[in-house]
């Protein structure tokens, strides 16, 4: 049973990380949104699985919230934003695709190095996935830094949140429920405010390319 649990954990975490890396080789907002929706779905499924194997029914609630908010609601809102802006292909990012993939590989290696003290003390069967969660954190940060469209940066940020949720679920079978609810509330409000700003940027600058945001220097 423990062996299956460990394998499910690693498989699920790899899936979540892979969806993040898709962002680096696909070019197009629609593909990004699909990748994010799939990532959230896999994360929700993994959370439910950890709830089942770890015998913690609270995680079913968390999994349902994850699926409802991040796999269904947010992708739908993002698609509406993308349609409204007619945002199609990403303008050339600051870093090209091949280099991006190499960088993300290095970042995952770095995550393995950084997560060594964690694996050393963990006794949960899910511990092998923790470096992957940390890898996704670094990859999401890289997406936010290297992409030019505001909407891509938002997706990168949402993936960063997923990465942290993954880390929590693997390391500690989730944070206490009251904290989890607070985090969901913040995530939802933060997303809605970011969405307002996306519309504001589009209406004022008539583009969502953050390259135009250079009025304020020094």
């Amino acid at each position, binding site marked *: 049973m423990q062996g299956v649990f460990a394998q499910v954990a690693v498989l699920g975490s790899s899936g979540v990380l892979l969806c993040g890396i898709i962002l680096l080789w696909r070019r197009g907002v629609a593909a990004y949104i699909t990748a994010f929706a799939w990532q959230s779905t896999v994360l929700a499924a993994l959370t439910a699985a950890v709830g089942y194997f770890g015998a913690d029914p609270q995680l079913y609630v968390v999994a349902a919230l994850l699926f409802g908010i991040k796999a269904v609601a947010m992708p739908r809102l993002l698609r509406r934003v993308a349609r409204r802006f007619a945002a199609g292909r990403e303008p050339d990012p600051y870093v090209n695709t091949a280099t991006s993939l190499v960088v993300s590989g290095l970042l995952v290696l770095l995550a393995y190095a950084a997560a060594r*003290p964690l694996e050393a003390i963990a006794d949960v069967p899910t511990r092998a996935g923790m470096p992957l969660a940390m890898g996704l954190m670094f990859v999401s940060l890289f997406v936010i830094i290297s992409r030019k469209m505001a909407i891509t940066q938002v997706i990168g*940020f949402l993936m960063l949140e997923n990465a942290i949720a993954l*880390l929590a679920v693997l390391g500690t079978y989730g944070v*206490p429920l*009251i904290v989890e609810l607070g985090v969901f509330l913040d995530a939802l409000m*933060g997303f809605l405010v970011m969405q307002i700003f996306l519309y504001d940027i589009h209406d004022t600058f008539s583009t969502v390319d953050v390259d135009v945001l250079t009025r304020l220097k*020094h």
Partner: protein
Amino acid sequence: MLLTGLLVPWMLSAALSSVLRRSHRLAAWLTAAAGVASAASATRLWLNALRGEATVVGSGALFRVDGLSALIACCIAAVAGLAMLPGSGIEKSDAGPDGARRFRIFGSLFALAMLVAVTINNVALMWVAIEATTIVSALLIPLHRSKASIEASWKYILIGSVGIALAFAGTVLAYFDFVSLLGRRQDALNWTLLMHVAPSLHADVLRLAFVFLLVGYGTKAGLAPMHTWLPDAHSEAPAPLSAMMSGVLLAVAQYAIIRWKAVVDAAGGPAFTNQVLMALALVSIAIGALSLVRQQSYKRLLAYSSVEHSGLICLGLTFGPAGVFASLLHLLNHALAKSVSFLLAGRILARYRSADVERVSGLMRVMPGTGALFAAGLLALMGLPPFGLFVSEFLLFRAGFMSGHVVATSAALVLAGVGFVGLAGHLMQMLYGAAPDGVAKGERAWWGLAPLAVPLLAMVVMGLFLPGAVGRLLGRIVEAMSI
């Protein structure tokens, strides 16, 4: 009871401001009254903390107010109250009636979120509250919709949210350490419990967690190199919001850093946390001070001065107990000086219609009262006597030399000198000379200046001698943080 008095007024004022659509004056005064009520409760909490008792409220010690909480809560309530006060803070003429109403609603929620952040015991819920401050304050930056303010708010919410997300990752790592050792507990993330069990936690995991926490909360505290959002957000925001963000939001982020540093230090000694904190602090002081020299906008000047002072506060935290004492005093003084300066900058901007130092001249002739107070605020920020920042900087540098950090302290001292020159040059340019054409002379709404003079007077008092109530409170905090 006291905690209710601290938090509930802001809930009421947010609710009433959104209900009272028509009666602006009434809503304005009710919001200001909320500030007074909240500040009164904060003062009572301060007095309780002086007696050495932490006020604990709620099931499972949900809220806990000790000296550190009371100190920052007092600053928050006072500054937020000042920002809401008609005549001194938000004005209908600033942003139109709708803008002023929006400011009262979200400004109240902003104050509430900050107060919850410093009074809640659970460090993960503290994170939730601090993240909420980013969201509600970001909504207020584009109160005047302009390209610059929208750009500033985008940078603010994106960089702020990403940074704070990393702080949550750090919180999760610390929780992971706790769970691996003691199993899952609902109250595992209570700061008091964390402090209690810290000596048996794994120091290397907590160090990793601290890096994430410091980058995360450091972003909110305006520490370089994560400070890039700060000059934009603080300069583009309406003046009363800048006052709250620069004066107390930075202090809230520093509060989080102080709490976590205490936990990590209790687990593995302060050597590691001091090193990383000192590095970030010195970079911040350098970037803040050097940027002061070549700024063209007086609001950006104040913003970069915040980066510098934020760095000084963090630097003091690495200088042992005497340094922590100086840091906290610096934090209190900076909250007073910076918020008043921003509010006065708002008055200047409203008259001159330009944030350019070059286009603001003859301030002493155009607005004698505002000009004099603005000069006092800036002189205080430069660290000149008789203001409190002089004393706290002096204590800070002395603690640095006494604790053997000669190089770091000397570097900070030189950089503070550079910042001094930068600020002084710009201030002289603004105060004297001929007033530009088309700017009306004569002070308006004198009565609005009186409340702004109060914090400056308090700073003079703290510059001349350290009042017992302040000194004893800071002493108690230092004791509690260095177990």
